[in-house]
């Protein structure tokens, strides 16, 4: 059999074709529009099959990345950008995860979006997103990656603002686009730095991640700025601390979108990019420390906001921010030794992988709750739903268990790897900062368990309450929605235990990605060995304590929560209002920008427009003066001609 690598282009191409087909269906007859999910589901499912083929390709190549340049995209001066794709272990893992989750969420959306007037548009934008996302992870050079990076941002904008007639959705879409755009500027500058200092002016990954080139960057002193600039892009896309404000608002979009884009895939693009650039980051310990600190701080911040939110989707959104923080923390822990770097990066990607399953599951379950509750998502307005929505309840429980790090579920294994990597990083010289991060991460693990359990108990336990919007016939969702839930629940339960403790995931990434992708050679033996029983025990205890506390506060003694909130009123209010980040940004950035816009608008309207209007009014003023001459009398015209002629003659004579 010949090498099947050239078919890689089909993986993004199929969703793109599906997007076009769905987009055309929007112009079809109404009867036909009901079937517009077919291209999307079929296209993405086929992309999933080809992603499996990509996995096979990676296996057959045994560690050597498949790099394919299909055609030169553009050439200008020193810039020579080819449309090149790459398949290695990391790409294959991301592809399989993205296409698998997308397929399930597309199927879920058939039920969730049923009857929406924008049904074809939804699936068109959904497929377009999958196109860009698969392109992003397949890209082998920074320009293709950047193009797809912006593409997913565009799809995120379109899908957050899917119900664009709602002002809040339009505002959230705008906010998401602008905030991530801030980060994208950093990413682009980082790419430019890498390009400008590259000895051969190349933007291809395999040209940049060569040891000699990295040494060159380091000797030029641009390695740290480049890493930090790229990380700025990742901070924007993955909603980390200074730029995290857009992700919770992004919940204005349809819930499947929240599940796919704002939990499972797009927001992990930042983690992917830092992992991809690990050869660069790994050489710069300060960059790693920045990554780890930002990640850890975000994890704690988002978790402490999630504790008091009452909107189920917002709790999940903040938990996403928090878990992404964990992933960055892990990425930043690969200091000092190659083995630790491998372990830390693997832990981050492993958490990314398991997180995609259980977070997509949680969001879809929340969507199922919304579907049954008539679009009510405020946890104070419903409760005790476990009898009404049995399947949703069980699947949500699986996801919540995995998120809170309940022993043996998938989140447990991956989070434990992260904590172990962090713990390992805190030994040795300069480990003090990492020890601090470790303490914070541990605390966050406990808080995570608490707020996850709180959301679960508030939604599914206690006395049964249904909002009036449910119209008294709240019922379990149709099978097209529950089946994806059950499959994802299986993933949330089993992915961790199958891939984690067996070391499958780690060995796969190490052998098929890092061996070829990392500059220094990695010892052939198992790179793990940072597994720590103490850390595992401690995190388990914290998770169980968090769950227990939530059980006590929200089921056993329901009066406790308001009482506690009253006792620590200041802290509660601060957390409830998201530590006033929106207000601070509103006062420092948005307000002045608005004021400047207002001033410029006045300038434009009165001064520039006035000038143009003045020039425009000149001909009509002249016309007003000359108009009486046109009085319709031929003799008068003749007289004017004579006078004009005599004037002319006099002028000539007197000259």
């Amino acid at each position, binding site marked *: 059999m010949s090498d099947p690598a050239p078919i890689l282009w089909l993986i993004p191409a199929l969703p793109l074709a599906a997007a076009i087909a769905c987009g055309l269906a929007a112009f079809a007859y109404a009867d036909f529009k009901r079937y517009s999910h077919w291209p999307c589901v079929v296209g993405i499912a086929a992309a999933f099959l080809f992603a499996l083929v990509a996995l096979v390709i990676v296996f057959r190549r045994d560690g050597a990345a498949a790099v394919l340049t299909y055609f030169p995209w553009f050439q200008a001066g020193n810039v020579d950008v080819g449309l090149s794709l790459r398949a290695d272990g990391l790409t294959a893992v991301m592809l399989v995860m993205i296409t698998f989750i997308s397929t399930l969420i597309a199927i879920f959306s058939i039920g969730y979006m049923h009857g929406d007037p924008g049904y074809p548009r939804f699936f068109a934008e959904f497929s377009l997103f999958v196109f860009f996302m698969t392109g992003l992870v397949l890209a082998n050079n920074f320009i293709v990656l950047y193009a797809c990076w912006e593409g997913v941002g565009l799809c995120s904008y379109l899908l957050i603002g899917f119900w664009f007639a709602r002002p809040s959705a339009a505002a959230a879409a705008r906010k998401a686009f602008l905030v991530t755009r801030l980060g994208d500027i950093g990413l682009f500058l980082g790419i430019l730095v890498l390009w400008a200092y590259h000895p051969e002016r190349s933007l291809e990954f395999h040209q940049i991640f060569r040891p000699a080139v990295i040494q060159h960057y380091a000797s030029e002193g641009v390695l740290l700025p480049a890493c930090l600039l790229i990380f700025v892009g990742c901070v924007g896309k993955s909603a980390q601390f200074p730029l995290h404000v857009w992700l919770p608002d992004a919940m204005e979009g349809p819930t499947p979108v929240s599940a796919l884009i704002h939990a499972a895939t797009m927001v992990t693009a930042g983690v992917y990019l830092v992992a991809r650039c690990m050869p660069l980051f790994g050489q710069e310990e300060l960059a790693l420390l920045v990554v780890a600190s930002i990640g850890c701080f975000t994890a704690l911040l988002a978790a402490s906001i999630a504790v008091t939110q009452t909107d189920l989707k917002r709790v999940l959104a903040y938990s996403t921010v928090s878990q992404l923080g964990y992933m960055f923390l892990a990425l930043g822990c690969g200091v000092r030794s190659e083995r630790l770097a491998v372990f830390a990066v693997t832990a981050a990607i492993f958490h990314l992988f398991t997180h995609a399953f259980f977070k997509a599951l949680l969001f879809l379950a929340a969507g199922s709750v919304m579907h049954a509750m008539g679009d009510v998502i405020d946890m104070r307005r419903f409760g005790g739903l476990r009898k009404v929505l049995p399947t949703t309840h069980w699947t949500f429980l699986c996801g919540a268990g995995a998120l809170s790090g309940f022993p043996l579920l998938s989140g447990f294994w991956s989070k434990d790897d992260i904590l172990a990597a962090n713990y390992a990083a805190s030994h040795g010289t300069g480990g003090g900062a990492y020890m601090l991060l470790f303490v914070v991460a541990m605390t966050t693990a406990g808080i995570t368990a608490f707020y996850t359990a709180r959301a679960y108990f508030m939604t599914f336990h206690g006395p049964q309450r249904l909002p009036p919007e449910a119209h008294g016939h709240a019922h379990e969702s149709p099978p097209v929605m529950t089946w994806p839930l059950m499959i994802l629940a299986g993933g949330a339960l089993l992915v961790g235990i199958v891939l984690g403790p067996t070391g499958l995931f780690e060995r796969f990434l190490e052998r098929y990605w890092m061996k070829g992708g990392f500059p220094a050679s990695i010892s052939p033996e198992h790179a793990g060995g940072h597994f720590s029983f103490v850390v595992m025990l401690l995190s388990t205890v914290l998770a169980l304590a968090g769950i227990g506390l939530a059980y006590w506060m929200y089921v056993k003694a329901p009066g406790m929560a308001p009482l506690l909130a009253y006792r620590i009123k200041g802290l509660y209010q601060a957390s409830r209002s998201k530590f006033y980040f929106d207000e601070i940004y509103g006062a420092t950035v948005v307000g002045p920008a608005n004021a400047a816009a207002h001033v410029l608008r006045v300038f434009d309207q009165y001064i520039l427009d006035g000038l143009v209007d003045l020039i425009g009014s000149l001909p009509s003023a002249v016309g007003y003066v000359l108009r009486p001459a046109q*009085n*319709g009398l031929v*003799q008068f015209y003749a007289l004017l001609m004579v006078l004009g002629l005599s004037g002319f003659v006099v002028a000539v004579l007197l000259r």
Partner: protein
Amino acid sequence: MSPPALENYLIVGAILFALGLVGFITRRNMIILFLCAEMMVLAVAVNLTAFARYHGNLGGQVLTLFILTVAACEAAIALVLVLMLYRKKHTLDVSVWQELREPDQEPIEDEEPLPPEPPPPTWPHLPPSGPEPEHELEETSHV
């Protein structure tokens, strides 16, 4: 005897031109206006011939021939136009075409309008000549 000086011809041309100009500005009958315009053209033609003779070449005379040809065409077209305008308003007074002024301009009142045209003469209606044809009286009065 020497030929008359150039000035004499030019004076004749100027007089002709001035007459035509004054006529064009003061009269309102469209045909008269046209004749006045012709007069001005011919004044120019006189000048041209005078200059031709003065300079001793034929350039001015050739130009005059052109002017005459053009004036003939002009006459044909202008008279047709006058006829068409007359058919619209049943008058040759050019001031009735004031309505072609700019839309927001006030019309100029004619202080000395032309006397109204005499009504067309009414000719007596004569029966067809010849003897009355033969017909049966009974059949015609069957109403």
